[in-house]
């Protein structure tokens, strides 16, 4: 029951907030933060628990079956942490509705990560698009972005649903996530694989299916993109591991060349694009394309170390992306712009803001000692070990590019002379500091002790 409650709590409180009579900022913030913190506790407490309720028996067996697998546990924890941090420092018009959407987003994504049934997984895959869609409709100037996000991801979701249905019919049950020994074969198997693969690659995203992503990340309000960029981007990669790799390993192996080429293109393409962006959010968005491409390569490389590194890097990427988007949001709150051309010299008046941003950027560019380095090193080590020498070299080149564009981002905002036309605002408030500190602290802890996360992979890969 605890597992079910973990998913339902944010959803129910989210709907309850809509019913709140007026837009009370404090109540919304406190309710949202405490629910998110409660889910952190519940995820940890329910680590080994499961809950199941039979749903379908024909044409195949399906169940509302929830419970964390060793991998999804870390992603659910990341999600709950990012949501709590993002809500805690949210400052936005129509706060009540926004926080309600944030909670719905958390609940649906928890449903996705905790689902042990493929059909339920596919269901939450589509449900988690809706809060983001309304977030774009309600809080961005470009409704077209919202539609583009929905079209892309819903198309992917539809393929996922088709593949899931076919999978259920052939296997007889979709209650399979985290179960060993499930294996899909036969004439339909390649098509099922194709359906899953495209859905996961759109969601991640991987080049050339990524064009919804820079727009979505730019237009979403900072607290929501902190969660979407950090955790929703992991949904596709998570699916790649627990569905494609677990049930259709020979197809992953057969098409690994395609994945690796697409991943390598994403790596360089995203990095090169990030070098020249003027919008701070777009720098982070394109950097994500680059980093996620590397994770995709690591997952399909078929190497145990690479997979372990991929999981560490998924957590690390989540932590630093959330921190980066939140801090860019703080900057935008203060100066009403995200343009690197207009910003500069904020570090003099805002040393704490600059310090937090610096740590986040350093983690993102793979500074040794922080989580990003541990993930990158182990992933690339595994990719190299699997015999993919050139992809590992491309990954190393991308690290050099990352240093260039993240320093450009940091220096463009924080360094240089103080500018006369930028209003001087107060430094990081204690609430903002408290919201971003757990993410930065987690980056250090994971960087020094990555093997706690890597142990999750002990039994997954054959």
């Amino acid at each position, binding site marked *: 029951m605890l597992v079910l409650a973990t998913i339902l709590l944010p959803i129910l409180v989210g709907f309850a907030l809509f019913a709140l009579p007026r837009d009370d900022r404090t109540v919304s913030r406190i309710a949202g933060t405490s629910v998110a913190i409660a889910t952190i506790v519940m995820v940890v407490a329910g680590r080994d628990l499961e809950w199941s309720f039979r749903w379908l028996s*024909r*044409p195949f067996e399906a169940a509302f079956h929830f419970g964390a697998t060793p991998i999804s546990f870390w992603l659910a924890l990341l999600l709950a942490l990012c949501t709590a941090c993002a809500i805690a420092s949210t400052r936005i018009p129509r706060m009540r509705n926004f926080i309600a959407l944030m909670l719905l987003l958390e609940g649906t994504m928890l449903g996705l990560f905790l689902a042990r049934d493929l059909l339920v997984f596919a269901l939450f895959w589509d449900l988690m698009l809706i809060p983001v869609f309304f977030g774009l409709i309600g809080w961005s100037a470009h409704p*077209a972005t919202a*539609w*583009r996000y*929905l*079209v*892309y991801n*819903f*198309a992917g979701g*539809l*393929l996922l*649903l*088709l593949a899931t*249905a*076919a999978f259920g*019919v052939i296997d007889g049950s979709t209650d399979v996530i985290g179960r060993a020994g499930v294996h899909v074969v036969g004439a339909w198997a390649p098509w099922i694989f194709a359906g899953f693969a495209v859905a996961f690659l759109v969601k991640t995203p991987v080049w*050339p299916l990524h*064009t919804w992503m*820079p727009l979505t990340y730019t237009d979403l309000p900072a607290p929501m993109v902190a969660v979407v960029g950090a955790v929703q981007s992991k949904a596709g990669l998570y699916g790649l591991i627990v569905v494609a790799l677990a049930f259709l390993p020979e197809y992953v192996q057969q098409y690994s060349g395609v994945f690796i080429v697409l991943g390598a293109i994403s790596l360089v*393409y995203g990095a*090169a*694009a990030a*070098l*020249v*962006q003027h919008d701070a959010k777009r720098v982070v968005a394109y950097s994500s394309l680059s980093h996620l491409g590397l994770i995709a390569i690591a997952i399909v490389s078929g190497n145990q170390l690479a997979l372990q590194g991929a999981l560490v890097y998924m957590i690390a990427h989540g932590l630093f992306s959330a921190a980066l988007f939140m801090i860019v949001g703080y900057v935008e709150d203060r100066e009403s712009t995200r343009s690197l051309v207009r910003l500069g*010299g904020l570090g*003099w008046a805002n040393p704490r803001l600059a310090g937090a941003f610096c740590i986040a950027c*350093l983690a993102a*560019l793979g*500074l*040794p*000692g922080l989580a990003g*380095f*541990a993930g990158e*090193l*182990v992933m*690339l*080590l595994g990719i*190299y*070990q699997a015999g993919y020498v050139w992809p590992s*070299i491309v990954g*190393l*080149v991308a*690290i*050099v590019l990352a*240093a*260039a564009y993240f*320093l*450009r981002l940091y*220096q463009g905002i*924080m*360094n*240089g*002379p103080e500018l006369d036309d930028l209003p001087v605002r107060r430094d990081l408030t204690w609430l903002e500091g408290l919201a971003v500190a757990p993410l930065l602290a987690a980056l250090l802890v994971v960087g*020094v*002790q*990555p*093997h706690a996360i*890597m142990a999750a992979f002990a039994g997954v890969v054959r």
Partner: protein
Amino acid sequence: MHHVMGVDGSYPLLVALWLLPLVGAIVCWAFGPQLKTLSGWLASAMLGGSFVLAVLSWSAGTQNSGGALGAHQALLSWLPGIDFGLLLDPLSLLWTFIITGVGFLIHFYSMGYMDGDRAYARFFAYMNFFVFAMLTLVLSDNFVGLLVGWGLVGLASYFLIGFWFERPTAVAAARKAFVINVVGDVAIMFAIFAIFLNVRSMAFGDVFAAVGSLGSPLLLTICVALFIGAAAKSAQIPLHTWLPDAMEGPTPVSALIHAATMVTAGVYLIARCAPLWSASHDAQMLAGTIGAVTAIAGAILGCVQWDIKRILAYSTMSQIGYMILGVGVGAYQGGIAHFFTHAFFKAQLFLAAGLIIHALGNEQDVRRMGGLRTKMPFAFWAILTGVLSICGIPGFSGFFSKDQVIYGALAHGHPWIYATSIATAGLTAYYMFRLLFITFLGEYRGNAESHAGASDAHHAHHAPAWIMNLPVGVLVLPTVAIGAALMWGGENSPWARYFAPQFAAVTLPAPPISELVTSAIVFMVVLAGFAVAWSRYATKAAQANAVERLRTEAERIPAVLTNLFYFDAFIDLVFVRTAQLTGTLIARILDPHLIDGAVREVVVVTRTAGAFVRSLETGLVRAYALVLAFGAACFIIYYALVAGGVH
């Protein structure tokens, strides 16, 4: 079977030595506004403490019991097969002495130099953090720990080059230094991949024990990758371009990081990996050649600089070239000896130059100095001893180490490297005496109101002069005498005996030219360099119209030298511009028009299908509906055909 280097066991003193500067950095960073000028004393005290602990660790670091050399302390298990630990052996002990000892003096000096700066405490936090990172680099017992230190010193260097971050030039220099150093970091990562795949361990002991089982192409690959890392950190051609720009940082930073310690990390890396290098003749050839080319190129460029710190920066690049060629060709003791003496005399030169820069109100152009010998006699004598030492005048410290390197190149069978390094010695004498003569002889040519003693009037709360003078005075002693004290006596010198257990002895055929004759040749060449500098800058005729002469000289410098052999232009064109152009192409054309074009095709199709659709948004709605309907249809058809058949 793990091959641990050093006597395994608990050695908590080593952990304390390593962590003290980190504690100082955190306290200065967190409580800077409260500590004010106390932060300088605190940071210096932390380094002083570390230095005392290093001295106390002497016997542990040099102990030799049954092949296990030095002390080892296990720390934590990072990943399966990758354990972190600290290793104090003669090699890392020597570096620890320099890092904490010279580091302490430079911290002390900084209390005067940085006095009144708007971010005084932050400066000391970064300096202490640098020392912690550098200790991590030299004390790690495995390649990953070394890489962590390698990356962190790069970060400290970035912070300190860009310390005055209101200056766009400092910000750009900091980024350039960091990015070029990341090139080195990823090269070392690549070496780590190759090592781990073949040895299954990262510990130095395991790797060196397995050298025999690695094939020679693999060994060369590993050495080349490691050398790229060393070249980036130690400013070797073609990855040297960041070092002169790094002079944007405060002068104590140039002395500590960009002269005495961090830039010598490449020398440490090669000396640490001596078993790998000694096993690969091609790697030795590569490192020796690049070192020699860097030595002479740095010296040539040093001859045409006008900024006092840039002259010293090119001289550093050239001297590190000596060290790299020394350890590169296998003359490990010589290369390390030159690191050791260079740390003293170059720190001395930078700190003394800092005295001048400080007194002249941040003037760094030697053309606007001159005649300072009478106005700043202390700085004159300090720089003079440094110049004599770096030129290798017999008796001074630099003489003993430089001649070891030069003769080592010949003894290991590299006559061309030998000849190049002798020529470099002559150029060194020329540009260093040029610096001395232009700065201190003749008439004062500048217009700074506050030179020499007058500076006190400008800064009401100025730190007392002795804070900056004392470290310079202390450094004079090793600059002059430490070479004679430790390196006199060849095989039986304290230096040779100290390193005898560290590096396996090799018997080499006697070279055609003896060591004594080599020293004589070098001395003649140095005298020639001195004579040219004297005739151009020190004679009465040269000083009569110095302003005019220096201007003509500056105008006559060939373009290839004013453009620094076009290295910057080349890197900018081939790498920076290409990356930016690719990025622009993607951001402006590929992404919005070509790839996204496919999506808009869908929109256009739906638009033409429904003639009444006007706006983009509704077009997307149609596309969405279309996809939805198509998908649903597929779903239904599939169920009807396949799912129905199953039941």
